[in-house]
């Protein structure tokens, strides 16, 4: 499974949204209805899945689906 597909699955599981909602341009808060606890859980789930440590400052920049995908791609090469 590609990084993109894995991230998409995490977002779907965590936020209870469907695959077609998880577009690259979708904002977690505005489009996918995430609250602050959701965002924290999302970060933790990605850290777990990809064995990453995402610091708070970096995490706050991950606003859209594409941000999360490119962050993971960049840090798992």
């Amino acid at each position, binding site marked *: 499974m590609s990084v993109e597909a894995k991230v998409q699955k995490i977002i779907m599981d965590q936020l209870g949204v469907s695959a077609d909602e998880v577009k690259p341009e979708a904002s977690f808060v505005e489009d996918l209805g995430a*609250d602050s*606890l959701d965002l924290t*859980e999302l970060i*933790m789930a990605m850290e777990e899945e990809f064995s990453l440590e995402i610091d708070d400052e970096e995490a706050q920049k991950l606003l859209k689906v594409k941000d999360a995908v490119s962050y993971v791609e960049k840090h798992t090469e």
Partner: protein
Amino acid sequence: MSEKTLTALVTGASRGIGKCIAESLAKAGYQVYLTYASKAAEAETAAEDIRAAGGKARAFHLDVSDAHSVKDFFATEIKDKTDLHILVNNAGITADSLLISMKDEDFDKVLDVDLKGAFICTREAARILIRRRSGRIVNIASVVGQTGNAGQANYSAAKAGLIGLTKATAKELAGRNVTVNAVAPGFIETDMTRALPESAKAQYLMNIPLKRFGAPEDVAEAVLFLASDKAGYITGQVLAVNGGMYC
């Protein structure tokens, strides 16, 4: 995946209030995990007694103030092996002395166990409970966290802090259907209070409107209620179980 067992975790459950809470939760049908810091034999006996009575219980050594140990414990024993629904932060110690002669280490160790320990366990449990979208956290505070007590600046500060922790956590987790409440016992007959001089006990009794000391069962009943489905709309509260000492 096999069906996981509905579980309640009670810290500091080898004796006294914690043991009684564990017994009550076991009777209510939960598998109970009891943790202890030093009284291994007593904790094992407590777990065995629950099993002998037909309940499910296991005892584990855990220093709640050690974040690494707590994290490991949750990872190896709780996360994938149980269906954790209830956390009771009961573990607590005292190291009494008047403030002007209180040692730094006596202040620190009480805060570390009674307040930080609850924070650490709550953090680990909350990560599980928010995913589960349902859960109960009950913190065992104390009347002295509400009133203050001479000779217990450290313990009073820790228990008052625990009440603040309860209220903040309640707000953070409410959106995930996880309630967080505190029970504030008054004078309960346990090893902790048995150590007090008779004259002090007589003094306390004069200030208890119900004219008797409480039993661990009195506290356990309150915990059982807050942990039950019946208390689903109650969060961020402090339920005083103190015979009317302070309302």
